[in-house]
C-alpha cells in the first residue's frame, strides 16, 4: 500500500491543534438520504443545523410519496428529489455528485431517522485529517446497541475481514454514519453501488483496495425515532448470506 493517496497527516503540532480552524475553512456537506421520512426529517435537520452551524445540509429524497422533500426545504435544507426510489446507494451517489459539483471538501452521511447524533460530526471531521474515510461505529465502546444471532455473526465476519484489509480495527462496517474527504467524494460521485450492503461494505472494500485509509471513531447510536429494524430469524439468515456474497463480490470485482 502506498501512502501517497492518504490525506496528509498534520506534520507540526500547530497544525494538529487547528482541527477547529480546519472545520471552519473546509466546506462540509451533510448528506441525508431519505425515503418517506417526512415525520422525522424536520427534526433531524433542525438538530444538525443547531449543533453544526458551519455545515450545509442536503436531503436526497429517494422517491418519497409523503412530501419529504418539501418538509426538508421548509426546515432549511437543500432537497433534491429522485423521480423514483433507488435505494440508499442510489441516493448517496446523487449526494456525492452534488458535493463534487459544488466543491465540498468533506461529505458526511447522516441517516434521516434520527439515530445518528450530529454531536459526533466534529469528531468525524477531526479524524479525517488522518484518514480518507471515517466511520461512526457502534460496538466501539460508546452506547449500548446490541444484536444477536446470524446478524451478529455477519457483522463479526465483516468487521474481521475489513479490519484485516484496513489494518485497523473496524467494528461496525455497516454503519451509515460516515465522513469522507474530497478524493473519495470524487470516486463516490461516479461509483457507488446501489445493491443491498453495497453502499456500506463494498464501498469500504473499494476504498481500501485503492489505497485510501479508513478508520473509525466510537459513537453512541440512538434508538430510531420512528420505525423498527427487521429482526426475524429468517431475515437474519438472509442477511448473513447477503453479507458473504457482497463481501466476496467486493473482493473479486475489478
Amino acid at each position, binding site marked *: 500500500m502506498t501512502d501517497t493517496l492518504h490525506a496528509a497527516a498534520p506534520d507540526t503540532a500547530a497544525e494538529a491543534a487547528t482541527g477547529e480552524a480546519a472545520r471552519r475553512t473546509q466546506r462540509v456537506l451533510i448528506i441525508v438520504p431519505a425515503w418517506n421520512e417526512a415525520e422525522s426529517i424536520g427534526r433531524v435537520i433542525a438538530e444538525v443545523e443547531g449543533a453544526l452551524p458551519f455545515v450545509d445540509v442536503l436531503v436526497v429524497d429517494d422517491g418519497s410519496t409523503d412530501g419529504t422533500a418539501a418538509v426538508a426545504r421548509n426546515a432549511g435544507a*437543500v432537497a433534491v428529489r429522485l423521480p423514483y426510489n433507488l435505494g440508499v446507494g*442510489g441516493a448517496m451517489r446523487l449526494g456525492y455528485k452534488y458535493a463534487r459539483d459544488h466543491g465540498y471538501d468533506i461529505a458526511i452521511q447522516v441517516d434521516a431517522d434520527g439515530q445518528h447524533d450530529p454531536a459526533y460530526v466534529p469528531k468525524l471531521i477531526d479524524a479525517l485529517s488522518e484518514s480518507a474515510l471515517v466511520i461512526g461505529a457502534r460496538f466501539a465502546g460508546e452506547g449500548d446497541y446490541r444484536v444477536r444471532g446470524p446478524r451478529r455473526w455477519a457483522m463479526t465476519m465483516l468487521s474481521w475481514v475489513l479490519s484485516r484489509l484496513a489494518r485497523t480495527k473496524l467494528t461496525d462496517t455497516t454503519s451509515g454514519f460516515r465522513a469522507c474527504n474530497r478524493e473519495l467524494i470524487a470516486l463516490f460521485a461516479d461509483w457507488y453501488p446501489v445493491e443491498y450492503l453495497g453502499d456500506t461494505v463494498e464501498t469500504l472494500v473499494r476504498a481500501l483496495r485503492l489505497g485510501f485509509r479508513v478508520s473509525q471513531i466510537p459513537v453512541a447510536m440512538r434508538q430510531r425515532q420512528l420505525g423498527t429494524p427487521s429482526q426475524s430469524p429468517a431475515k437474519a439468515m438472509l442477511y448473513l448470506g447477503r453479507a458473504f456474497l457482497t463481501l466476496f463480490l467486493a473482493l473479486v470485482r475489478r
Partner: protein
Amino acid sequence: MNLTILTGATALLFLGFIFELVRRRRLREKYAVLWIFVGVIVLGLGLFPTALNHVAIAFGVANGVSLVLFFGVMFLLLVCLHLSWEASRLEDETRVLAEEVALLRLRMDEQSERTEERSAS
C-alpha cells in the same frame, strides 16, 4: 410426414411473427438479426427434421433431435444471460438519468425562486 407439416408450419409462423415485429420496428436491429437467423434454422429443421442425423452421429449423439434439443437449451440459457446483462445495463443508465433529472429539477427550482425574489423586490 404429419410431423414435418406440424414443425414446418410452426417454423413458418415463427418466422412470420419475427418479420412482422421487425417490420413494425418493435425489435432493435441487433435482436432482429439474431431472431431471423434462429427462425431460418428452425424452418430448415422443421422441414427436414432428419437433416442433422449424420452430424449427430458424428458427434456421438444418438440422433439429430437430441442434438437440436441440447443446442436449443444452451442457446436459451445464453439468451437469458444476455437479457440479464442488458437489464443491468439499462438500470445503470436509468439511474444516471434519474440523478440528472433530480439535479436539473433542483436547479430549476432555485432559478424560479431567484426570479420570484427579483420580481418581488
